[in-house]
């Protein structure tokens, strides 16, 4: 049996808008991945704990509140601290363009803004995740 790519899709912070996260989760499911959806209002610690227990290859973070520079970076740092530095981190939501290079420097591998075709996200993950 082919090994399935496991992706955690999480909504960190105080942001109740999860339509985007759900659409991406659904698209990754249709691309043959196992998507674990955590629900809303997660702390960085909760996201990382779930990533460990679920042994995921990818953590996908969605945030529309503007707190991405704090929360995305917290998740990236904590993952590293917990020995999960091989996990691919991707982000999405309302992320100003000038923040993208800074996020990449902190370990968020790619940022997908509104209007990104879902295939682009699943293709990116498939290419990046080592089998």
């Amino acid at each position, binding site marked *: 049996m082919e090994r399935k790519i496991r992706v955690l899709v999480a909504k960190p912070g105080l942001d109740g808008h999860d339509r985007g996260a759900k659409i991406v989760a659904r698209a990754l499911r249709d691309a043959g991945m196992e998507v674990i959806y955590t*629900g809303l209002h997660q702390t960085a610690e909760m996201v990382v704990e779930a990533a460990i227990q679920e042994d995921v290859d990818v953590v996908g973070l969605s945030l529309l509140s503007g707190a991405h520079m704090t929360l995305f970076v917290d998740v990236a740092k904590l993952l590293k601290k917990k020995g999960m530095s091989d996990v691919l981190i991707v982000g999405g939501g309302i992320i100003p363009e000038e923040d993208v290079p800074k996020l990449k420097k902190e370990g968020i591998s790619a940022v997908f803004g509104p209007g990104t075709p879902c295939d682009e996200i699943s293709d990116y993950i498939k290419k990046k995740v080592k089998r």
Partner: protein
Amino acid sequence: MKDLVSKVLKGDPHSIARLITLAENNDPVATSAMKDIHPHTGSAHVIGITGVMGSGKSTLICELTRLFRKQGKTVGIIAIDPTSPFSGGALLGDRVRMTELAMDDGVFIRSMGTHGMLGGLTSAVYDVVEILDASGKDVVIVETVGVGQAEVDVIKIADTTLVIVVPGLGDSIQTLKAGIMEIADIYVVNKADRPGVEQTVAEVESLVDISCSGKEKKIPVLSTVAKQNKGIDELLKEIDKHKKHLEKTKEFEKQRRLRYEAELVEIIRKRLMNFIFDESTFKDKIESLINQISKKQVDPYTAAEEILGKILK
């Protein structure tokens, strides 16, 4: 590998998670690890929870787990959701209802896809129960996919099986049907704040009356509102009572034998299927036989006999 097993036995979450992944993917490392794990299993109380989709299984598990934690017990949760028959992908969403447990290091939650298995479970679930058991969890809860009428495999793995029903899904004829309504050690009528709950409870109770007449132990029927944490204390008491009953009557060993039988059958099935359908020599033969069946040159029975003949000689 020895290192991985010893870390699992110490309860290290990274190692538990990694071994589960290996087991799910039928990795040879997992096979050899599972051989070392087995002697360390058998102490966890395995609770199976099944019911239709949306009946509140995940929410109920969250509330039950909080009470187990208050008793000082550690809990492993295996939450199964369906794998797509089309894409092979899955959306595993049971964690959403268990957010409160996320930061408790006495709780380990793992979401799994069914990977084409029918019956409400997934093939690797036997391994995962053993891994969580060996890692020192006092209670292992298996949540099946949202089931219909006939997915009853959970009884093979659970010491105690809970069937969750909700008001408003049908009349008393539904409770008389074979399948899911036969497998409960405890019935839970969840969402008991909904209209029609009295009727549902009465119907399940009358089912219990019919099926338990003459027996000394009657199957309990409980009402809960998981979301408001109502009735969960009583449910926990019934679960403990059932466990004590199993221990007292030697039913425990019988139940465990049933699990090991199912597990053995599953391992053999998996290996045989793999051998027949994935080994290249048979693969070509099977392809050509399917073509011949389509052209009516051979019938399916003769084709099956030809393949089995090659293996059994």
